[in-house]
């Protein structure tokens, strides 16, 4: 009984931390991904190469390496970030890199006529991208983006490695104290499952809201 009440309350704290990690990293990653994706298509030589390099870099090695670089590596050049901040930064960079792939692909899939029509009414390139291309591209990229955020929930557990007290790290600690692996991790699994389901539901709602009506209503 003691075990359960302690575990549950610790797990609740962990749940809040996990939620905080995802709730902050997801929007940051999405914004970064859109900016990177657009830069890769429209950024020209300098910004474009930077964006391409950036996303190739963060897709090029495991997230755990990014976490360690940020949390243990940066202090060597005088930048000290707390664990939660380090995790948020790493997650945003990583998801931004992947999301930029979806955004880039979606931008490329928008037919040329949309761009010509925007130019023909006198839009600047920036207006064209902001008001015509991105609103359509983001709608196409949103399925990929929602997958990426679901992955983020899963990989947020890696934050335990730099000492963030999120759900998985709570479960690990209790497991090493009580050896009730089945109970401890089953409950953990269920909570991740619920979180994933809620996120999926959220994105389904968003997709429905953003859907462009076609045919007769």
């Amino acid at each position, binding site marked *: 009984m003691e075990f359960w009440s302690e575990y549950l309350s610790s797990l609740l704290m962990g749940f809040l931390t996990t939620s905080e990690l995802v709730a902050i990293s997801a929007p940051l990653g999405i914004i970064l991904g859109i900016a990177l994706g657009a830069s890769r298509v429209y950024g020209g030589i300098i910004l474009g190469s930077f964006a391409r390099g950036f996303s190739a870099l963060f897709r090029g090695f495991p997230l755990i390496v990014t976490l360690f670089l940020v949390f243990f590596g940066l202090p060597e050049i005088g930048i000290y970030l707390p664990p939660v901040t380090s995790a948020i930064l790493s997650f945003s960079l990583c998801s931004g890199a992947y999301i930029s792939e979806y955004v880039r692909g979606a931008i490329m899939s928008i*037919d040329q*006529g*949309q761009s*010509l*029509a*925007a*130019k*023909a*009414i*006198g*839009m*600047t390139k920036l*207006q064209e991208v902001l*008001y*015509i291309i991105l*609103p*359509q591209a983001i*709608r196409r990229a949103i399925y990929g983006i929602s997958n990426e955020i679901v992955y983020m929930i899963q990989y947020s557990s890696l934050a335990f490695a730099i000492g963030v007290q999120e759900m998985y790290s709570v479960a690990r600690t209790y497991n090493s104290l009580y050896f009730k692996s089945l109970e401890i991790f089953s409950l953990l699994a269920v909570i991740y499952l619920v979180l994933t389901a809620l996120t999926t539901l959220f994105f389904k709602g968003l997709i429905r809201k953003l859907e*462009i*009506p*076609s*045919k*007769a*209503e």
Partner: protein
Amino acid sequence: MIVLRAEDVWKRYDDTIVLRGVSLNLKKGETKVIMGPSGAGKTTFLKCLNLLVKPDKGRIWIDGEEITSPKADITRLRQKIGFVFQELNLFHHLTAIGNVMIGLTKVKGMSKSDALKKAKETLKRVHIEEELWRKYPAQLSGGQKQRVAIARALAMDPIVMLYDEPTSALDPGLSSEVLLVIKELSERGITSLIVTHELGFAYEVADEIVVMNRGRIIGGGSPEELRNAKNDEVRNLLNKWNGLKDGVLV
């Protein structure tokens, strides 16, 4: 008064020369029709006029300002040219009225309420009724889409409207409503340059018809003059189109 002037426009793609020195003037209130076989360079020429395609050589003036000048303010000059495309390319993510408003709010900097008012007026001018204003392009017929596209261009108060085969992507039955709108606008003094294959329509609406072939203007004149064209190449082309449209040309 000449509102649009193109002088010796050349364009090549790789090893095909698509435009070989095309010149054309458009007077205020005038309606000109460009006809020519597929691949003649009609679309390329129209797109050169507002620099959607950059000519290799030649100069273009809009309302007395040279758009081909290196220091031209291209986005501002483009607002003076209404362009209706061969493909139906309304902005997919915006409603009919949204398509008309976006240029007014974002490009012209109008307030939402002014833009809304202007968009409604313009949609009425092209016979798009209120029940269609909130529909998205995918919910409209081809003819409705093309009329919204005309409204989108017209709302910007251009000094000239360019139409690139505005009915070629439509089912035959839907062409007439679009052609009617173009004719009405032209009759009300909107300066127009129209590329079309519809010979009957061309005769009805044009002050002058210009015939293009292989990147050159090979002839032209008023509908009356064309009916009696002496130039063999022009005659042959006209006869060919005429074969498609029975009974228009004697």
